[in-house]
């Protein structure tokens, strides 16, 4: 799977790219998932230019839906990694509606998402969740490449904390 994402994302050629690149891989629900994420930082504004994803989840029953779900996991994962602050006070969430909880919106979504599946004859395994968690790792690694700072605590960006 990592070999597939390396090949499809042009990992070796990408080293010369001006974009900041991050990779992460994950295993859960008996499936493997990995992303290579390219982002650019201009005047403190972070834009995700491209995400290349690879998944090994057995036989793909519905390729259209499967691709859509991976795209969704990538988009929502980026939103969560960048903005998804959720804090509690006296046992209650402080962000109780969309005026306080910042969800990713269409202008913040990645410009392109390229999804690939490892072809094999294994019975289908998880598809909805496995591509979600590695997005955080790929975002954090790409941010490290761009800024030289490690991001350990989500959300990585906020209104108060803009990038240098």
């Amino acid at each position: 799977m990592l070999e597939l994402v390396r090949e499809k994302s042009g990992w070796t050629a990408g080293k010369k790219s001006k974009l900041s690149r991050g990779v992460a891989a994950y295993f859960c629900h008996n499936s493997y998932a990995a992303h290579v994420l390219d982002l650019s930082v201009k005047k403190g504004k972070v834009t995700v230019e491209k995400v290349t994803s690879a998944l090994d989840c057995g036989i793909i029953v519905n390729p259209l839906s499967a691709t859509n779900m991976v795209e969704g996991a990538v988009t929502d994962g980026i939103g969560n990694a960048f903005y998804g602050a959720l804090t509690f006070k006296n046992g209650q969430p402080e962000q109780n509606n969309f005026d306080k909880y910042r969800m990713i919106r269409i202008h913040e979504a990645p410009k392109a998402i390229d999804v690939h599946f490892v072809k094999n004859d294994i019975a289908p395994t998880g598809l909805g969740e496995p591509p979600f968690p590695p997005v955080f790792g790929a975002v954090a690694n790409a941010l490290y490449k761009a800024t030289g700072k490690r991001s350990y605590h989500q959300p990585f960006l906020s209104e108060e904390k803009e990038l240098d």
Partner: protein
Amino acid sequence: MWTGEKHLKTVNFCLIDVSNQPKERANFERFLPQKQNDVMAKFNLKINGKTRQVDVDPDTPMLWVLRDHLDLQGTKYGCGIAACGACTVHLNGMAMRSCVLPVSAAENQEITTIEGLSENGDHPVQKAWLEHDVAQCGYCQAGQIMSAAALLKNIPNPSDEDIEAYMSGNICRCGTYTRIKAAVKTAANS
């Protein structure tokens, strides 16, 4: 005349008469309707080309008139504060968040919901949505489609920036944004 007196008389299980005890009365009053009278009024609404009459409180948001009184449940409730776009309808062709539009402000104006966007679900935006297989859970999609249809009415050939600016009021937790953008472009070219 005390606001709650009428209600108090009808409450069978009220064992203690609190009408002459100000502190208890105030406590009791908290649980009663806030208004002096329930003001209901008849409104003539033009929805999806038909005239419909409803008898509701003038403050009722259009969303609940559509869903609860007119049985048009294609329009969805998301946040109630115009922050998510799930309840988007057209008011005289403009995209409006129906959760913050009081019914009294919408009288005699043309309202279009997702049910009335096209007769057979063949509006260019709806066809493009099917072609790109945009929806996942689908909850936000009625609002997304209504916003997209209003965008194309204003800007027939939108750029990426136009789409992003116009559609940024609609959020989608399934993360279908890349497909929404592609589908809006397909609809614009058809």
